[in-house]
């Protein structure tokens, strides 16, 4: 809309500003809480301006095992676990789905459509639905309390397979034919053509999947009983319940703040690709 009405401008800005405040206020409160000591945080009213304890809290949280009296592992360990899990899920999901899409789009093999529909049907089976049998399988394979157990069941993805299928379908047939005439076999075509041409899509998918992996809650809760394998998202919940008496909000909020950083870093770092990958159509 190319309208120029001051009143409309005012309303649109107002709506946006209110929206931003709604989103930003909890984050601000979290930040403020992570800069005061435990005593201050136990008093009402809660502070709205930052205090001077940020570095102290950071040291306490990052290297200590979170809270006094809780059994969670050190927060750096939890973050590392979360990071490894998220990376394994991302890399696994991207590799598996790009290969499945490659097979479905470029090869004619028996039961091709059957496989296609089987993948499609898994859309209806997220991990929450199949959680008991999946747990059973993972337990029998001895993968409880391991990175494999954390990530493998979350790797298969129909959505990502479809996304790559769509990407491949936009690549003109003549490109494949040119490459064939140039002597490129299936492997070379994949690595020399498809992979570079889907680069931005891979980046976009990586952002989405990394955050999906990082924020996993239910599944890690089930397969990790060993505290040293816990993830940071779980530990926040555990810290809340850890101590009788008042929760140590300064440490908990610092943990929450730390938990937010990697996804933010990924989004900011990949923003350029992300936007390109979702909007670019020219091939």
């Amino acid at each position: 809309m190319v309208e120029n009405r001051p009143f409309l401008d005012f309303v649109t800005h107002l709506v946006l500003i209110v929206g931003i405040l709604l989103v930003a206020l909890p984050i601000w409160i979290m930040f403020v809480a992570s800069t005061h000591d435990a005593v201050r945080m136990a008093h009402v009213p809660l502070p709205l301006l930052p205090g001077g304890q940020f570095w102290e809290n950071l040291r306490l949280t990052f290297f200590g095992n979170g809270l006094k009296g809780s059994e969670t592992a050190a927060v750096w360990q939890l973050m590392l676990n979360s990071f490894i899990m998220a990376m394994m899920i991302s890399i696994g999901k991207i590799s598996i789905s790009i290969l499945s899409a490659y097979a479905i789009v470029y090869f004619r093999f028996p039961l091709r459509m059957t496989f296609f529909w089987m993948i499609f049907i898994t859309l209806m089976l997220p991990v929450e639905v199949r959680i008991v049998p999946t747990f059973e399988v993972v337990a029998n394979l001895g993968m409880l309390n391991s990175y494999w157990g954390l990530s493998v069941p979350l790797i298969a993805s129909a959505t990502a397979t479809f996304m790559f299928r769509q990407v491949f379908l936009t690549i003109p047939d003549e490109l494949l034919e040119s490459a064939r005439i140039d002597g490129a076999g299936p492997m070379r075509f994949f690595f020399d053509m498809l992979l570079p041409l889907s680069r931005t899509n891979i980046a976009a998918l990586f952002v989405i999947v990394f955050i999906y992996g990082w924020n996993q809650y239910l599944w890690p809760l089930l397969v990790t009983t060993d505290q040293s394998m816990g993830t940071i998202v779980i530990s926040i919940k555990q810290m809340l319940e850890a101590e009788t008496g008042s929760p140590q909000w300064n440490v908990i909020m610092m943990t929450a703040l730390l938990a937010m950083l990697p996804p933010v870093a990924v989004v900011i770092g990949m923003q350029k690709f992300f936007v390109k990958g979702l909007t670019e159509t020219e091939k």
Partner: protein
Amino acid sequence: MSKIKFDYVRKSYGPNEVIHGINGTIEDGEFVVIVGPSGCGKSTLLRMVAGLETITGGEIKIGEKVVNKLEPAKRSIAMVFQNYALYPHMTVFENMSYGLKIRKVPKAEIKRRVEETAEILELTPYLKRSPRELSGGQRQRVAMGRAIVREPEVFLFDEPLSNLDAKLRVQMRLEIKKLQERLGITSIYVTHDQVEAMTLGHRLMVLNGGNVEQFGTPIDIYLKPETLFVATFIGSPAMNILDGRLSDDGTAAILTTGEAIQLAKPLLSHKGQAIKLGMRPEHLIRCDADKALLYLNADVVEQLGADTILHANLGGSGETVIARIDGVVPAASGERFSFTIEPENLHVFDSDKGKRIN
């Protein structure tokens, strides 16, 4: 460099046969243009030579080798596509060298060949650019370059100029012709452009509905089309075809309006039979009314400057005739014109089979 031989080549998609047995030989170093209406199977035939489509029946030989079962990369061919099919993520240099790299040609040799080719095609300043930073004409040249550096035995072109504007098309047409002459590589060029068909190749193959209608030099095809289809397909504006019959002694064609037109040679075998009489618009000559063979009433007059195209009807009958007159001719619709034609410019076709009989 080598010749290409089609031996009763057929192609079916499922139950549909789209190429019905094509024969013919393309000589070493020859430039053959394949022309025909949309959907007649031009691209299919070319792609069978390239190895991009399987061959349902018959044989294609390149040189002395039957290539039916050979991978495209092993056929020693290079192909230029209508949309160029450049690799969008590679620079011009990488685009041109990709095939050589796969073939494990030494680096120095690749560099030499690419630079040489770029020189011929005036692409040297663009070697480091990516295809999206090039104009249509430059992309077209890169596609050509990619074909040339591979030093194939056969070039295949599938309507390579149809995405260019008219002016660039003329320029590239000349360049392709010069290049083919210079390199002397056997080439097949698919087009549906009249001018490209007439001017580019040594020989022209006219395809219709999966069959070869005629295969000969462009001038032969223009002067002596073997079938009604070729007669109307080659030439622009298209040849006029009038209904008629041969006189009882076979020396003249009699039109539906009653005019008798003397033939160059009597056609004794078809005396008295129904025929189709073909006359090219450019062969109709204006003359005085008393010498005229045809009287045309103008319907629409198109002034092109260099010549005038007269859309007319034949003396009151419903049959339309197009005449092409040199220069500017002031004419109004409804005006009556008299025309004559040299007997050797008459084309006589069998009315049923559409085969040439004179």
